[in-house]
């Protein structure tokens, strides 16, 4: 492990992560000592519309992957429509490689709750939900504890801090489905139905939860709000780039010396991130990496210096996504990695639409065959074609995500496939996996 240079270390901007290492920061007393709920007091003194404007001014963009401007989203909620409004926090973090929301909720749950209260006040919601991934038991326990503490202190419930604003917050655990991270599937699941994506329009801002105007935001997005309220839009914009403002938690995993969460201003490069993480593991050289989880097109060592903000990554033909940077080396097999991802997508496909349901079934089996040494040249064309037939044809983005690593690895690493087909690479899977195939 190598020490990062000072100028690179200075790129770290701990904002959302600043309390993670403070002992017991998940308890409300400690949180309050560390600036907690100060933003709420400030926010309740201003008009909700001013808060929406503040978030617009800050340039905050959604941290869940799509990067949609948050203030704009809040502004879509029709006001004075006589309907209840809802805030739903998407804490169903399930993208392979992504692990920024769960530590946040585990080590600093009150920052999310404070953000929820401010955001609900801004969009005039009196009921908010945090939809947390079912497997994240520990984080959910911390979060529920924090909600109880917040109620006890009068930050939730009726007439919060004497402002006349009421808010109830429900922490809802999902049942373990990746698809429920898709916002409309999440809403269906929250309503008690089978989690499958809904037809849009209508969009959640018009008819979301219980057919009422609803804002669905990622944990990181909502947790950013108190800092913006306290620090102001200009301070927020002092981090990151012009169009991608603020700090971002980069989740580094894979062949690096020190995997973990690194919060830096948007626009940092992978070269710098790897340096922050103590360099590559000894004997490993970077071969390919995901900029934002496995659903984003893979990048290679050619892309070490592109700025990791929404525009920079898009310019390189990929997507910033959830900034889950999975780093693979020359000792990793891209074909094998793609198969593992595909098994995930196949398992998690909700089954609603044909391309995702059937295409993943097909591709997974083709990969198993190739990795068992039973591949044929024609398989590569069929895989490419099937991935093309899934991408952009499925009902929601899950299908696109599944097709992405296939297209990427076929594009960058075709030779690795040929090595299996032509017998230069030893089979990784037993032929037993193919019993019954014809």
């Amino acid at each position: 492990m190598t020490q990062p240079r000072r100028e690179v270390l200075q790129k770290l901007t701990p904002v959302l992560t600043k309390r993670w290492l403070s002992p017991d920061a998940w308890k409300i007393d400690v949180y309050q000592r560390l600036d907690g709920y100060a933003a709420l007091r400030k926010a309740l003194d201003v008009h909700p519309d001013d808060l929406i404007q503040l978030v617009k001014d800050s340039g905050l963009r959604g941290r869940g992957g799509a990067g949609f401007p948050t203030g704009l989203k809040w502004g879509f909620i029709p006001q004075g429509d006589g309907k209840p409004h809802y805030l739903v926090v998407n804490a169903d973090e399930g993208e392979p490689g992504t692990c920024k929301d769960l530590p946040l909720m585990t080590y600093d749950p009150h920052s999310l709750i404070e953000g929820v209260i401010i955001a609900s006040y801004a969009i005039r919601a009196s009921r908010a939900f945090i939809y947390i991934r079912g497997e994240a038991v520990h984080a959910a326990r911390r979060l529920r504890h924090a909600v109880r503490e917040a109620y006890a202190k009068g930050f939730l419930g009726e007439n919060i801090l004497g402002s006349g604003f009421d808010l109830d917050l429900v922490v809802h655990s999902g049942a373990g489905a990746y698809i429920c991270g898709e916002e409309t599937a999440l809403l269906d699941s929250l309503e008690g139905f089978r989690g499958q994506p809904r037809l849009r329009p209508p969009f959640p801002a018009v008819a979301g939860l219980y057919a009422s105007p609803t804002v669905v935001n990622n944990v990181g997005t909502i947790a950013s709000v108190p800092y913006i309220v306290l620090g102001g839009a200009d301070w927020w914009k002092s981090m990151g780039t012009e169009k991608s403002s603020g700090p971002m938690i980069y989740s580094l995993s894979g062949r690096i010396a020190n995997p973990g969460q690194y919060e830096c201003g948007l626009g940092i490069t992978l070269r710098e991130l790897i340096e922050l993480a103590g360099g590559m593991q000894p004997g490993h050289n970077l071969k390919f990496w995901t900029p934002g989880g496995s659903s984003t097109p893979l990048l290679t060592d050619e892309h070490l210096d592109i700025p990791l903000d929404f525009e920079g990554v898009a310019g390189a033909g990929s997507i910033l996504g959830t900034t889950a940077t999975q780093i693979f080396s020359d000792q990793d097999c891209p074909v094998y990695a793609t198969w593992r991802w595909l098994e995930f997508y196949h398992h998690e496909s909700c089954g609603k639409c044909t391309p995702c349901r059937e295409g993943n079934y097909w591709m997974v089996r083709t990969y198993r065959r190739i990795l068992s040494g039973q591949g044929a040249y024609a398989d590569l064309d069929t895989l490419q074609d099937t991935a093309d037939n899934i991408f952009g044809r499925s009902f929601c983005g899950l299908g696109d995500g599944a097709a992405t690593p296939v297209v990427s690895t076929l594009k960058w690493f075709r030779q690795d496939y040929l090595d299996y087909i032509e017998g230069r690479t030893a089979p990784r899977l037993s032929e037993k996996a193919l019993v019954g195939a014809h």
Partner: protein
Amino acid sequence: MTDVAKKTDTVTLTVDGVEVVAEKGELVIRVAERMGIAIPRFCDHPLLAPAGACRQCLVEVEGQRKPVASCTQTVAEGMVVKTQLSSPVAAKAQAGIMEMLLINHPLDCPTCDKGGECPLQNQAMSSGRADTRFHEHKREYEKPIHISSQVLLDRERCILCQRCTRFSEEIAGDKFIDLMDRSSGEQINVYRDDFFGGDGTGDGQVGDDEGDVPFNSYFSGNTIQICPVGALTGEQYRFRARPFDLVSTPTTCEHCAAGCSMRADHRRGKVLRRLAGDEPAVNEEWNCDKGRWGFRYANAFDRLTTPLVREADTGELREASWSEALLAAAEGLKAARERGVGVLTGGRLTVEDAYAYAKFARVVLGTNDVDFRARPLRASGASDGTDEESAFLAASVAGVTDVTYADVEDAPSAVIVGLEPEEECPILFLRMRKGHLKKKLQVTAVAPYLSRGFEKLGAALVAAVPGDEARLLATDPAIAAALGAPGAILFVGERLATVPGGLSAAAALAARTGARLAWVPRRAGDRGAVDAGCLPNLLPGGRPVTDADALAEISAAWDLPDGALPGTPGRDTDGILAAAADGTLGGLLVAGVDPADLADPRLAEQALDAVPFLVSLELRQSAVTRRADVVLPVAPAVEKAGTYLDWEGRLRSFEAVLPTGTMTDGRVLEAIAALLEVSLGTGDVNAIRRELGAMPASRSARPALPSVPPAEVPQRGEHEAVLSTWHHLIDLGSMLDGDEPLAGTARSPLVRLGKDLAGALGVVDGDAVTVSTDRGGITLPVEITDLPPQVVWLPTNSPGSTLRRSLGVTSGAVVRLAAGTPGPILAEGAHQ
């Protein structure tokens, strides 16, 4: 102003280079369809909400990054759409989806019932590849599973378009099938224990385990019809035929008064299946399971094929030639008409046959003793002879076509009394549900409790003790308020006839509030019989028999001298049977009547036994034919042409499905008349249609509304209750004979009690309760229901609950209740 409004309601778009105007909100796939561009699709169905699940209908829309599902995309001004005809992207997208749909499809078309009429097969030919690139193992499931006794599911054929689940939820409201599991293991299924950790039986069959919930819907057959593959099949038709061997004939359903269009498919002289016909004004594209599967009665083993004549020496019926039997009938009726012959026609006749009976009664028998009503006409024990219903039918129903299905859908509010629409007119129920869900129709039910059907209509309940409906209609403010809105409709079922003053109150209420009134009988031939004149007080066309001008009109139409037609009202069903029983009448002419349907089956059979001469025109052996002196076989609906009037009064004409040469009732009656030297002119359906068509509209004044006062609800002692009852859709009716899988989908017979009675009897759900009268008793498991105090509900004619025969009473009567099964003596008074 209107021009501007019109303009904003349409948009102009381009599809495959052709400019087209479309309504705002129209789906691209529909626009293409109108232009003759067939975009392949599976999940799309015009009567279901868009799903976008199968992705087969992808097209290219300029400015969109990805291909767009044309079944979910609404049109927009200036939109440029390219379908597979002009866009390689769309064509490739569709080919890709088709390939993926087929990888896990078994391609067992040669043994699949759908082969030959399968949208997947057809569209695979148009959009698919010639050969497969799929070399992996296909998905397998146990097959088939019975999701009900009638519906089978082969999951490996399913393409998960969700038409069936969407139909069940959106249209029928019976969400008993749903998606289970996910990913490539996603499947349609019913709720079963093994999905929730129970053992299951492992054989994949439903219904063996505690906790299994089969597909419990009266409309389940529609899911089979809209399934775009062979995943859902019916027990009755599975493996019976190939579609290309069948001859299809459009026809009309002969069961209830809904008037559904149907398609009957036959091969080698036998109908093998029936499908819902496409009739937007009536049944849209749906029908009920009774209409779909209840047709095997026509091929029952006891079908009559030759005339029968009772041998004077032995007293036994024997087969006879037509000429002998007709002569015996003619001579018998000629002798009997000296004292009088009553005519009971039943509610199963076509308009043409009903007209033949109406004419035969007046011209040949010289009587107005003719009545189609084969059911209770008045409250049990009412004996004053007032026929409130026939007066109501004359005043408010005959010749009236005020309310249509479309009106129901658009109505702001509807009040339903004496009718449980799901059980008694299922397609009317579906239209009400559509109105309720899509156009805010508010339903108010005047009934003892909110049945499952009423609940699915989101109905508000005006709780009525049976017999008290008349008072409620006259005084309840909620009912009057519900009918106050313009366009409101008051639905009156035939059962209201058993409530003294009920029909009078309904007619008065409609007149007072301005609401339109619709009378909904239970049988396909009921409404036609009213207009054809099968009533003691009405001649054809709703003409009162007491109106001299009407008599003159009909005499002229029938080439009769003035004064030839009887000018006083005749006896109704109850009166005819009483007169037959006491020897007043010399004979009876009975068409499709089952004595078990009548108010008191025992009394009816005594009358049939007592009457000196009985002629029966029947399809199958029955309680009437066994007692008849002459039995003349006639054609079932499938073997004749005819017309029904549905509850709207709409003509629902059909041609014969099977050309067998079996005679219609009208033709048999004409032959009898000829032997009595009367030319009846009813031998040919088209001749009757011409005769009816040439008849001028009635110029008679409409008779006054009946004004029978409401009666008091009877007092009940301890362990006594007022009886409420109606028919289950699928019950012991003789036209449901011959199809056990269909009978298996019937709702379980049970007795419903309120908490008060359950407490008094000390019973809980599932315990046996015996309901009895002096005649006998019925014992069924109890379901505690939110009923008014001291009211009990039983199905009218279901297995174990043949109410009229066992109890001898009908709705509104007081019955005794006891917990448990009775001892050897059913009840006091039943002791012989």
